């Protein structure tokens, strides 16, 4: 959740820290699951190179339109550009990695 020092073993570019936002609507079991999945994936693939911001729309409904959130949970990769969005509880790690451009799309 906090920026860490640059780590050597990163499969992605030297662009710096990844900025990830996870939009949820209340800490529902699904939201908690999504957050757990996200942390797991980040620790594994972006260790020390990421920052996760959790936005609870029930508390800040105004923030939903900025990132055009319709579904929850939605993970938004703000940085590096381009913006990527992944909806769902992030249970399928492979698809999350594809969605985050951490793995090339399967042919």
């Amino acid at each position: 959740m906090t920026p860490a020092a640059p780590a050597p073993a990163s499969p992605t570019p030297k662009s710096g820290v990844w900025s990830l936002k996870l939009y949820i609507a209340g800490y529902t079991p699904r939201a908690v699951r999504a957050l757990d999945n996200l942390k797991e994936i980040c620790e594994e693939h972006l260790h020390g190179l990421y920052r996760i911001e959790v936005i609870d729309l029930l508390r800040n409904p105004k923030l939903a339109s900025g990132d055009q959130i319709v579904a929850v949970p939605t993970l938004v990769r703000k940085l590096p550009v381009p913006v990527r969005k992944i909806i769902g509880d992030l249970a399928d790690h492979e698809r999350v990695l594809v969605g985050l451009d951490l793995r090339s799309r399967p042919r």
Partner: protein
Amino acid sequence: MLQQSGSDKAPGATQVRGSERLKGLTKCATGIRGLDEITLGGLPRGRPTLVCGGAGCGKTLMAMEFIVRGARDFGEPGAFMAFEETGAELSKNVASLGFDVPKLVRQKKMALDYVQINRGELEETGEYDLEGLFVRLGSMIDEVKAKRVALDTLESLFSSLPNEAILRAELRRLFRWLKDKGVTTIITGEQGSGELLTRHGLEEYVSDCVIRLDHRVVNQIATRRLRVVKYRGSVHGTNEYPTMIDEQGLSILPISAMGLNYPVSTERISSGISRLDTMLDGKGFWKGSSILVSGTAGSGKSSLAASFVDSVCSKGGRALYFSFEESPDQIMRNMSSIGLDLGRHVRSGRLQFNSVRSSLYGLEGHLVAIHSLVEKFKPDVVVMDPITSMSSIGTREEIKAMFSRVIDYLKNRQITAVFNSLTAAGDAQEESEVGISSLMDTWLLLRMVESASERNRVLYVLKSRGMAHSNQMREYRLTNDGIQLSDVYTGAGTVYTGSARMAQEARDRAEAEGAVQKASRQTRELEHEHASVRAQVESLQAKLAGIEQDLASSRNAEKARVQAEHGDRAEMARHRMADKQRKGAE
């Protein structure tokens, strides 16, 4: 047994509930012209209404008008969620209709949100729901305390979100949620193919009210139509109604007469024919009134209208002449034959002709054309000649609806309007073909009267609201110096016109002269008699005088004779020496 008694009860119970619900169904006026008339009050309050139709049929406009009119005219703030156009685009599109969306947003009477889902940047993993959408909508509703919501076009979610099962479940939840919030909602949906009203079967979720918009070409004429497919718990018009989009938004044609509250003028406007003005209370038409001129072919309707136009333009007014059968040049040439030079008014820019075949557009197209020309030209007087040619492009009811629109519109702008109506020969003269006479303030009837192997024109004022108009017929003559009205002769149930009238006039003149002669003869005769009687009196008097004289002289003679006799007797006595006794005895 038990089951049966249960089922006996059940229908009764639902019936009670049903009627309670019917009573409880309140409506939410849309303010969209004509729609509230068809639905007898508006959309079901607190419930969702589905508006479906093909591309370009006006779905978005209808949704936007519902929200804007609610916020602006009904004090009901609204939330508009757009899925296809950005807020700025939407605002710009409706700005031409006089809808100032940014202002309403600033005043917190309206909330606008654009939901954009870019499929390309979206990946789906695992379970999710559309709570984000709910949160956004909820926050908009809370922000402006919205009573109305529009979702345009919700169906685009189907193409952006991959999991249809989740989407359908969420839509069902959304409609329930909207109902719970008590907001009146319009949901638009793309026209579906086959039996589906919408492409993704949204009608499955919206069961209260479904409105279908349609834009199609009939007889090569593009027409917009609207139909209320379904309205649970309410009666509603079930026809397809012609619809148009003008500079004030959407408007559905069957309108009785929207709010009869136009300003009225106390000014009068001359008809251009002084004797007709005399018939109309001596002052002519009311300014801003609508005038129907009906008559058979060739009875002089156009001439009457042209005469009015000429008079108005000569006094500096502006006139717009809609002709559905003749070209401007033809009208001008024909009118020059009765001494009306309309060309000079065209050249001075005070008169504009608009000659189009009635079949060029649909009724709504004509309405739009009339509106836009009137807005542009700003006339004082509008002529439509003849409105009966519209009967080929619409039913009687549609035409009546259209003209009640036109009349309302013109009255609101204080424009005097002349509508010429052709009555078929042999028809009841008082029956105007398109049934719009009740909308008119003044009705002039031109009739052809056949007598003595002539056809002559007769004009009378069938009605004229708000003035003591003449009840007399006038012969209507088209002369080289314009229109002339003459008295007609009525007697023994016939009307004398033309030569018969002239003969009657001559007869009358002769009779009048005869009467004068007779009177003077009588005077003379009396004078004569007077003189002769006087002469008789005089001669009799003379005679009387003679008689009196004679009488006097005769009396004198007698006296003399008596005296003489006495004298004689005394003489004789003296002579005979008679005694005095005898004389005493005598």
